[in-house]
């Protein structure tokens, strides 16, 4: 009897100890819950330029170089690098101990294959191919070289590119897969591991800390430095209803809303439990079909540019005054190192009467403008309706065709005339990284013969872009940049309708938010 009693007691104590250990372990798991700005559908940042997939890439992959908070490329996976005096031979050595999330070593062969994949996809990589015929080669397990036929001024900018197609590093066997479809296997050497077993597409995506991640000794600075996270687990939630997302933040069920809808910004400023911040710089764009009338005429595109009131567009999209840039007359990003107003002077002040006159002088004959307006994306809908009003104010014959974004996505690829099922104009937005230079901005980097919807083509822009890419002298580069910008205001490849900053919101318990950079969800900057 006594034996039974003792046995029961010892079993109970053991059970309690195990429970306590489990509870302690659970309590020690530090989790960050983020309401992501979109749902992750594609897991391959080397396939799509979707921002949510790019952000997914930052979590699980690392890059050879990373840009710091000043936008300067710093070695990341690379330990040391050298370049020859003529700039044609680059040599890179990897940091010791780098491993992929599956435990295998990162070798220079992985870097070479990943860079070859990146070169075939990205705008800087393609420019490098066109100008310098790059040859990536593994010398030994830790060293690889880049040989160029001509010097290329943006090697490090390319190898640290923060957006578009970032140069993520994956195992050689994956990097060599065709680029015609997205990869589904996710193996990187970044700070987190993607938990596929907990992935509920359309609802939740989970990351856990990568035990194989080897951080740098330097403190984190934007996409450079040590990315070791203070969180063991990060959950990206997709909450399609903005009201619920904000309510969840107020109640503390989530820690971070990556993009707060404009109409919630002012109410959230009065909530003492929430901190708001600006999430990078964005621009709204009116994209015109330059194959067919009326926008195949650059004079008519200039007239539209003259009619656009950025203040009205930004007000329609709902951003408060302090989150807009007043009259940002640049094709790049206002406030960035590439900011220039060369050639913009005639268009600094919107003037509908003058625009009407320009339209008449350009020979506009009342051709129908088929404007594609998305109904399912709130800010694009507002931007589209404002575009319609602007064109009507100028006296253009506007045919607004409203549909969902998926339909517009398919329709804008059609080269047909507007009357034959094609289109004349659609609206979109672009983040700062993807607007800020003649090569990262898709519409400014599109040379004649490109396949980009709108099909912009201006031979002078092509020549100036090429000259700017080839030039290594910073002063001469600046002169060429201004010349490019001046020509852009003549050719008008698209119209910038204003610059703004979306807002993010964090719970007050989250520390380090002031170190966030460029509107990117850099989890390793934060702590709770």
């Amino acid at each position: 009897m006594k034996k039974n009693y003792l046995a029961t007691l010892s079993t109970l104590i053991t059970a309690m100890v195990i429970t306590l250990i489990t509870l302690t372990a659970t309590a020690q798991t530090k989790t960050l819950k983020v309401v992501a700005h979109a749902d992750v559908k594609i897991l391959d940042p080397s396939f799509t330029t979707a921002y949510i997939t790019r952000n997914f890439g930052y979590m699980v992959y690392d890059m050879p170089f990373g840009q710091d908070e000043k936008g300067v490329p710093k070695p990341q996976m690379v330990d040391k690098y050298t370049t020859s005096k003529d700039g044609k031979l680059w040599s890179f050595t990897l940091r010791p101990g780098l491993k992929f999330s599956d435990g295998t070593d990162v070798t220079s062969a992985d870097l070479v294959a990943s860079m070859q994949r990146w070169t075939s996809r990205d705008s800087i990589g393609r420019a490098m191919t066109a100008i310098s015929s790059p040859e990536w080669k593994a010398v030994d397990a830790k060293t690889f070289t880049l040989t160029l036929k001509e010097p290329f001024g943006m090697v490090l900018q390319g190898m640290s590119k923060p957006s578009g197609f970032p140069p993520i590093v994956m195992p050689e066997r994956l990097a060599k897969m065709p680029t015609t479809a997205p990869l589904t296997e996710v193996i990187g050497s970044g700070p987190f591991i993607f938990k596929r077993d907990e992935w509920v597409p359309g609802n939740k995506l989970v990351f856990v800390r990568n035990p194989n991640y080897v951080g740098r000794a330097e403190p984190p600075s934007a996409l450079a430095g040590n990315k070791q996270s203070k969180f063991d687990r990060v959950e990206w939630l997709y909450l399609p209803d903005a009201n619920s997302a904000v309510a969840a933040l107020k109640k503390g069920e989530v820690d971070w809303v990556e993009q707060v809808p404009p109409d919630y910004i002012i109410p959230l400023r009065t909530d003492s439990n929430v901190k708001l911040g600006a999430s990078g710089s964005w621009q709204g764009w009116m994209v015109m079909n330059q194959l067919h009338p009326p926008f195949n005429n650059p004079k008519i595109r200039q007239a539209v540019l003259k009619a656009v009131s950025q203040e009205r567009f930004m007000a329609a999209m709902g951003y408060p005054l302090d989150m807009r840039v007043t009259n940002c007359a640049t094709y790049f990003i206002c406030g960035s190192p590439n900011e220039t107003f060369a050639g913009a002077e005639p268009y600094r002040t919107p003037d509908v009467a003058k625009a009407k006159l320009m339209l008449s002088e350009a020979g506009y004959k009342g051709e129908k403008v088929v404007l594609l307006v998305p109904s399912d994306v709130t800010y694009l809908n507002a931007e589209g309706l404002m575009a319609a009003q602007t064109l009507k104010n100028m006296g253009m014959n506007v045919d607004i065709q409203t549909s969902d974004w998926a339909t517009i996505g398919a329709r804008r690829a059609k080269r047909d005339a507007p009357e034959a099922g094609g289109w004349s104009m659609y609206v979109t937005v672009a983040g700062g990284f993807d607007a800020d230079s003649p090569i990262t901005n898709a519409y400014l980097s599109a040379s004649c013969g490109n396949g980009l919807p709108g099909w912009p083509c201006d031979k002078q822009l092509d020549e100036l872009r090429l000259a700017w890419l080839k030039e290594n002298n910073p002063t001469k580069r600046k002169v060429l940049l201004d010349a490019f910008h001046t020509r852009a205001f003549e050719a008008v490849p698209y119209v910038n309708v204003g610059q703004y900053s979306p807002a993010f919101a964090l719970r007050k318990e989250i520390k380090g938010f002031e170190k966030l950079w460029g509107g990117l969800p850099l989890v390793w900057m934060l702590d709770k």
Partner: protein
Amino acid sequence: MAYLLRRLLATFPVMGVVAVIVFMLIHLSPGDPAALIAGDLATEEDIANLRVVLGLDQPLIQQFYIWLTRLLSGDLGVSIFTQVPVSQLLAQRLEPTLSIAVLTMGLTLILAVPLGTLAAHQAGKWIDRCVMVFSVMAFSLPVFLIGYLLIYTFSIQLNWLPVQGYSRIADGLWPWFLSLVLPCTNLALVYIALVTRMTRATVLEVLQEDYIRTARAKGLGAIPVLMHALRNAAIPIATTIGVGMALLIGGVVVTETVFAIPGVGRLVIDSVQRHDYPVIQSVLLISAGVYVLVNLMIDLSYRFFDPRIQY
């Protein structure tokens, strides 16, 4: 049994017609998933290559044939966006959807049938009027508005319940129950209103029958009389509840969106917005199958309520 077999066999042509209609409607609507997957900066060449990889370049009839042969072998296909098997996507969504359906209809049954019966018994009196005012309001107010009010009151102000999300049964019964209280209350209000009105109307009609008058004349108490009346009024009530159950299993988009519940409804909407053909086709086909089966069960239940019915 013969009737049951006949009805089950009849589901095959119905499903066949549904399959053809769903496939054609989806594929003939404008929009191109390849353009969406390829992203904003994709060139025509990128999109064309992707269409080949996804098999979207093949003639429609061939795409239908491939889908149908896979379906008949039990393969629902793979999402063209996430590359996750549709069966896995459905399995993830089934637990929240079934949980919502069962709890909502349970709550409806517990509250609506007694309320409707009581209203019929007290027809014209203040209780009846109160029940009818509640029914009209619950049925008329938009679901999302009630959802927001519930969140504001019980989550933000009182801090009793979570705002959003679904907690799996495997993670504990209590968190599971808490995560469903608000969405199920939100949905149940509509169904309670509907079933209460239906119950009141049918019970009221039965209460005016001769045999009820006879029963009362013989001195039978109010409750036994109501029980008799309820059984005879059960067929339309069962039909309403059954159809409601089928609709809930098919997904409730607004409630799932407001409370961020990963159910079948949101899966369908997300897939439609992205033109994710394999997911839309499979989910709609399965929803149609569930609808057909639930209707069959409703028909079979009629014999339980009224043994005079013969098939």
